[in-house]
């Protein structure tokens, strides 16, 4: 599976990006307010313009934001969702709680058995 490391690498870049509070703030600002220039972001966030430019370059290289031409030839940065969705796959696997679901299934079956001869749970609730 030569392609497997690719999604690993993508997920890792997302989590690395998110591990830094300034980069989280930049990504959050782009998610909340749409594409913005480094200058826009500097006015909105408590981060210097130089630091923002540095983080944006890193995020762009990782494919998490895309640079695009904006008004008056200023570069705007847009959040790219594809890598986030790969990270989401990873999180979904961690968040899938089959243990809890299977406990609920057992409890459901025990309740049904205890309810006999009542036909259904609803029949019992109505009585």
């Amino acid at each position, binding site marked *: 599976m030569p392609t497997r490391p690719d999604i*690993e690498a993508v997920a890792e870049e997302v989590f690395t990006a998110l591990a830094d509070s300034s980069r989280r703030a930049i990504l959050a600002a782009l998610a909340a307010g749409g594409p913005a220039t480094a200058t826009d972001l500097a006015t909105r966030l408590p981060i210097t313009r130089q630091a923002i430019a540095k983080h944006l370059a890193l995020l762009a290289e990782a494919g998490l934001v895309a640079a695009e031409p904006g008004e008056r030839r200023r*570069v705007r940065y847009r959040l790219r969702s594809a890598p986030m969705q790969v990270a989401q*796959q990873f999180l979904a696997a961690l968040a899938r709680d089959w243990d809890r679901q*299977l406990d609920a*299934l057992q409890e459901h*079956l025990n309740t049904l058995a205890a309810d006999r001869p009542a036909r259904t749970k609803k029949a019992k609730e109505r009585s």
Partner: protein
Amino acid sequence: MGFPDRIERTVEIAHPPARVWAALTTAEGLGSWFGNAATIDLRPGGAAQLTWTDGQKASMRIERVEEPTVFGYTWGIYGLPDDDPRHTYVEFTLVPTGTGTRLTVVETGFAQLPDDEYRTAFGANTDGWAHELGELVEYLDANAA
């Protein structure tokens, strides 16, 4: 190496397979232990839907129906858009035991690759962005003066 593709659990249930099967494959069963309500068209290719009182929904496509031993369906990955092509496959296997049922659930596909469109986006990104950004910055610097 950390990307989990497959989740597997086995539980011993003190009820016969027919009961477990009904809980897994009927709207009444699914709407009791899994969702708060459910609909199901129990045949390969049929649709099922779970809904919860908080407004969440899960849509499934039934893939395998071999009463009372195998029930399989595909559904979307939590958190991804509804139209995302990535889906996981869930399969329940029921084996009768002396005291009830051994139920195994396997869910696979969490680590599947994005479709070609996404893959192209990733590939293009690694090749080009650093270079293009460099050119753009040079261009802007030249024009700012």
